């Protein structure tokens, strides 16, 4: 009886329950997976050139930065925080990459250094949020501007473009003679890693607990602050990696690289069924959210739909993704309540 009426977020934090598993299939993230498959199928049948392997390759390259940034973002939003500085971190690492390359450093040294730089930038966010206890929205809006500013300080309006061709052609190339992009393998590995951490480890349970009820989590012995700190470090490191990918993909280190991308990332995460209030969400849902958003944009562009209409569609999807889970949740709660009433009335 009590499990039936328990708030949703508590059951979400215990993914082993079989009752939850069935509810997840009909939940928002399950629905998003289905919608994504449906959209891709419809687009493949109706939009010319969409179903080609070449287009699939473009699509994967386009969604790579969004997906990579969305993975740590999911964990951060589940803990009830946010990181809006990710795109600026990409821009700053891209600038740093250009400066280091201009100074004659080998690319093999630059690339890991970029990841470290990203991690340090993430650590700054982490310290401000956890040690000083500042709201992450304010902190990361601040570092969004700060990191972008530093990127312009480093590189100004100029672009560094003379990166070796081997590296950029690997980045945009395919495995052997197949039409499978090289980046797909690391994408699957990294996504799998994040999914495993979130859904199959104590760290993942701590992330859900910290977002569902931080006070209870702290009483349960979860070091909420330290957990969040490391999530920000991870987010920064991944953004550094995206900075490397971005620079090589477009063979161009620029201070304005990836500007505005943070909003696409947050949109995709919310579309994937992660609650902006924390405590709820799944990584498969987020992956589907990213794929859905990118496929829709790709298909609409191929169908020569105007850019304005495309922006309207993306914006509407975001509103739906924030609204719909709430509607679904309250509808389900009402259903549970009515069932409970029906079940109790005859016996009493």
């Amino acid at each position, binding site marked *: 009886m009590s499990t039936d009426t328990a708030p949703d977020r508590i059951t979400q934090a215990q993914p082993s329950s079989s009752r939850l598993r069935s509810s997840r299939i009909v939940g928002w993230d399950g629905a998003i997976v289905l919608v994504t498959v449906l959209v891709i199928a419809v687009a493949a049948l109706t939009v010319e050139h969409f179903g080609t392997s*070449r287009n699939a390759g*473009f699509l994967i390259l386009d969604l790579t930065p969004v997906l990579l940034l969305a993975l740590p973002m999911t964990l951060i939003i589940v803990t009830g925080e946010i990181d809006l500085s990710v795109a600026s971190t990409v821009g700053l690492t891209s600038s740093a990459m250009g400066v280091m390359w201009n100074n004659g450093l080998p*690319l*093999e040294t630059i690339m890991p250094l970029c990841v470290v730089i990203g991690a340090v930038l993430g650590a700054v966010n982490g310290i401000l949020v956890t040690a000083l206890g500042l709201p992450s929205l304010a902190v990361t809006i601040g570092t969004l501007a700060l990191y972008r500013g530093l990127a312009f300080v480093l590189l100004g309006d100029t672009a560094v473009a003379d990166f070796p061709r081997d590296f950029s052609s*690997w980045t945009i190339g395919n495995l052997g003679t197949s039409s499978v992009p090289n980046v797909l393998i690391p994408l699957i590995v*990294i996504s799998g890693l994040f999914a495993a*951490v979130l859904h199959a480890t*104590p760290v993942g349970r701590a992330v859900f607990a910290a977002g569902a009820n931080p006070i209870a989590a702290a009483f349960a012995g979860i070091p909420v602050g330290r957990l969040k700190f*490391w999530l920000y470090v991870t987010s920064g490191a991944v953004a550094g990696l995206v900075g490397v990918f971005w620079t090589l993909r477009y063979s161009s280190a620029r201070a304005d690289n990836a500007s505005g991308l943070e909003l696409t990332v947050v949109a995709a995460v919310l579309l994937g069924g992660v609650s902006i209030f924390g405590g709820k969400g799944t990584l498969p849902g987020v992956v589907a959210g990213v794929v859905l958003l990118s496929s829709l944009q790709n298909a609409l562009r*191929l169908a020569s739909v105007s850019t304005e209409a495309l922006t309207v569609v993306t914006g509407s999807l975001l509103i739906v993704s924030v609204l719909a889970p709430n509607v679904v949740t309250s509808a389900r709660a009402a259903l549970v309540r009515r069932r409970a009433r029906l079940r109790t009335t005859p016996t009493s």
Partner: protein
Amino acid sequence: MFASRTRRTRRFAPAALGLSLVLTVAACGGTTQDSGDDDDGAGDDGTAAAADPDAEYAADLSIAMLPKSVNNPYFEASSDGAQSAVDELGGEYEYTGPSDASASSQVSYINTLSQQAADVILLSANDPNALCSSLEQARSAETYVVTFDSDVDPGCRDLFVSQVDSDEVGRALIEMAAEQIGGAGSVAILSATANATNQNAWIAVIEDELANNPDYADIELAGVVYGDDEDEKSFQETQGLLQANPDLGAIISPTTVGIAAAARYLSGSEFKGQVALTGLGTPNQMREYVKDGTVTEFALWDPTALGELAAYTGAAIASGIITGAEGETFTAGELGEYTVGADGVVTLGPPTRFNAENIDDFDF
């Protein structure tokens, strides 16, 4: 419980970091800027076929314009020009592009157009290099790439339709200023930012003309100030110029933001009609100042003609009339005959001058 949670949390982040490191390092070994890159800048556009100057324009070309960003009046004017050229040739025209002026958003649109097998892409590039790999893919799929307004690396496109020659702009600017002050006096320049490449190229031409052209022997340059392409800053810099140089004869502002701000200041000040103002501006911005007598004449290239020429250039190469080699000629409808210059550059011509007589003929 506490201890194990902590350890796992700690272990997790370095693990993620480590994995990212491995992935980036895994690429290959020992590459620095100095180690060189031989495949780069090959610039071979693979146009081995000979040009046939007598060939007709093909009738069923699909031509797409990809501006720096959509909803920009300048590019909409270019699009009108391209549209009329394509209509004239009986082809199919599309205007598409990102809403933000970033190179990476343009890549997706280039990919889309090459998927749709467009015959010609007319591109104004947001970055000289970032678009190259997608342009190469498009060109290998038999799409001709003609840049206009803003070029990419010459190896990555077939032709570039340049709005103007920078020497001609500099010369036109100083000539207009000299005419308006009667050939003698001091002039000052209100530029955009101190490191704007095109602005500095024009200013260098002006300085060179003042130093070497005997026609301008009685004109001196009072100074160069920077309004950073911000309306308010340009407004204040204009005010500063007039206060610091009481004998100033003319202000040259080779930026549309600067000239409009300077005109606004002048029109409301005692210097109206006393100090000449010229430079590069759009007719719509400057119309009221030409009509109220603040400004006599200013210049800019005509974006509609630029778009029209770009479309004809694209159609010419797609029809085999030209291949992009230096010295080839083609006829761009009513615009007349054009010659392909070095590096595959086709230049529209000297900037168009706008004054009270012709300003109402333009809408951009």
